[in-house]
């Protein structure tokens, strides 16, 4: 019987690449060339990259090969990775998907990026996103529309749409993204890949261009749950440069991968299975719950009573923080500056009006309104109190279960243009992912099936207690290995 053909280099997992590299079956230069060839083959249709850096990538690959020849080993040494364009890369343009930073070249590097660099990863380039991470479809990018590799007429999700699409299409082995209200998990679900948002504070936000400081978190995309472990291991951990960085050291996230979920309790919160959710999404998630039970996990009934207030709470807290964080874009020290103004206020106003897109302006306005005199108590402060109520909901639930199991998104990938004219409809896409950010929990989305007619990916979301990423990855890995969804590839 003939052996199956080897998996193309661009399609391998981090684990498979590491094996081949350690056995000298291939080199990082070969692996990087394979990714670059794949990019040449499909990027024109997917449009995931804002900035591609092939020469720099090959130089990094050569450096990784030299380190390996000198005897160094490591799970990310020589692995091609993409970076969402909201992460500062020293000397390399970082746009945040915005005209206002179109030519901005950071003089320093994000800690998460520096840690990957130190580990010998190869950077392929900067990936497309909704402007300043505000969006759920990547349609708000000022530069280009990224298309879902599973159906090029549909959105890849957002705001880390470029990262999700690049990994789904085999253009990167893995990618970094960021998640403020679901911006890793939702595109992961839309594109049929794994997406992890660690506990708030696990990954330094130094060099992450801020949207909402109490919600933003860096995380990763990959084609296998096990691939997330070395990435998280590398980027997690206290950073003195970020005062919101948690002191908790990063444990070995993959230590307990054994496929046996006995002793683990999980619950499907009844408030997540509401009218309006796509019936195929519900069916796939319930089937996944059955698989978890087959693996030994014990189901329990849980309730998260304040779920219906999550979107409203988020769009007050996050926009308030954003209005403050985006005040720095005024044309004075960096970025776009409007020409021909005669006084500073005019310069600020025209710079921001011309440089920002519509969604960013909408959120700045909403946040400013929520914080303004006369409305602060009713909107912003009230939202912060609801946040406490939601945290208590989860604390209560975690007295009965170790994992909360939900759909990632109420619907699979919708068509480009479908929701762009109705902001509120777009915001409601985040209903299942938002609570995790408000409360600061770790969350993962992984593939759990395809829709019947259009073969669109469906995402399963797991949430765990703060700092319990090891539990999250263990359960996700066991589910993944017991099913075939992770083997499916888009028809590119």
């Amino acid at each position, binding site marked *: 019987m003939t052996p199956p053909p080897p998996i193309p280099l661009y399609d391998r997992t981090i684990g498979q690449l590491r094996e081949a590299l350690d056995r000298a079956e291939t080199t990082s230069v070969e692996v990087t060339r394979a990714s670059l060839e794949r990019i040449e083959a499909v990027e024109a249709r997917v449009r995931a990259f804002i900035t591609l850096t092939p020469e720099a990538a090959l130089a990094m690959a050569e450096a990784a090969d030299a380190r390996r020849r000198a005897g160094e080993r490591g799970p990310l040494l020589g692995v091609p990775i993409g970076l969402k364009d909201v992460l500062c890369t020293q000397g390399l343009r970082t746009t945040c998907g915005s005209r206002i930073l179109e030519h*901005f*070249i950071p*003089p*320093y590097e994000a800690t998460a990026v520096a840690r990957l660099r130190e580990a010998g990863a190869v950077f392929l380039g900067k990936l497309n996103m909704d402007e300043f991470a505000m969006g759920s479809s990547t349609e708000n990018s000022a530069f280009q529309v990224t298309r879902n590799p599973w159906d090029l007429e549909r959105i890849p999700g957002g705001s880390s749409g470029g990262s999700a699409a690049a990994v789904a299409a085999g253009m990167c082995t893995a990618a970094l993204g960021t998640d403020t209200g679901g911006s890793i998990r939702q595109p992961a679900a839309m594109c049929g890949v794994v997406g992890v948002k660690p*506990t*708030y*504070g696990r990954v330094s936000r130094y060099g992450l261009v801020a949207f909402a400081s*109490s919600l933003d978190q860096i995380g990763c995309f990959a084609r296998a749950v096990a691939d997330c472990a070395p990435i998280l291991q590398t980027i997690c951990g206290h950073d003195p440069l970020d*005062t*919101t960085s*948690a*002191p908790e050291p990063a444990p070995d996230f993959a230590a307990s991968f054994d496929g046996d979920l006995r002793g683990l309790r999980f619950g499907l919160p009844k408030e997540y299975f509401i009218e309006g959710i796509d019936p195929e999404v519900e069916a796939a998630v319930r089937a996944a719950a059955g698989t978890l039970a087959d693996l030994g996990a014990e189901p329990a009934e849980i309730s998260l009573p304040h779920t219906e*207030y999550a979107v*409203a709470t988020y*769009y*007050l807290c996050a926009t308030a923080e954003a209005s403050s964080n985006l005040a720095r874009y*005024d*044309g*004075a*020290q*960096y*970025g*776009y*500056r409007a020409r021909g*103004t*005669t*006084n*500073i*206020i*005019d*310069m600020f*106003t*025209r710079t*921001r*009006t011309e440089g*920002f897109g519509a969604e960013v*302006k*909408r959120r*700045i*306005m*909403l946040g*400013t*309104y929520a914080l*303004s005199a006369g409305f602060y108590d*009713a*909107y912003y*402060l*009230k*939202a*912060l*109190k*609801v*946040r*406490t*109520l939601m*945290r208590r909901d989860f604390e209560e639930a975690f007295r009965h279960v170790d994992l909360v199991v939900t759909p990632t998104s109420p619907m699979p990938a919708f068509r480009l243009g479908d929701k762009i004219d109705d*902001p*509120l409809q777009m915001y409601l896409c985040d209903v299942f992912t938002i609570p995790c950010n408000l409360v*600061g929990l770790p969350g993962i989305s992984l593939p759990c099936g395809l829709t019947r007619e259009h073969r669109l990916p469906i995402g399963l979301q797991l949430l765990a207690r*703060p700092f319990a990423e090891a539990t999250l990855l263990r359960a996700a890995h066991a589910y993944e290995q017991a099913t075939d969804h992770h083997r499916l590839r888009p028809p590119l």
Partner: protein
Amino acid sequence: MSKVSRQDIEKVARLSRLAFSPEESERFAAQLNSILEYADKINALPTDDIEPTAHGLTLANVFRPDEPRPGLTPDEALANAPETEAQCFKVPPIIQEMG
């Protein structure tokens, strides 16, 4: 909660340093109204003795010793500036002559 008027939009726009055409102001007012109307549902919740949560972690007062460390050089700090002069960021006038 009162509806957001065009005057409210103009005031908030001034605070945000954004300018809108009359049509855009109308459209924004309508969109903000529908979002705020949706957000109003949180007002139904009793929260009188609930503490606000501004942040996911319980960190407070994270300090370091007040010791100087290397930072950006002036050239690095000015590298992205639209306009510079004498190692400063140059901007349009802040204070103007009246009359």
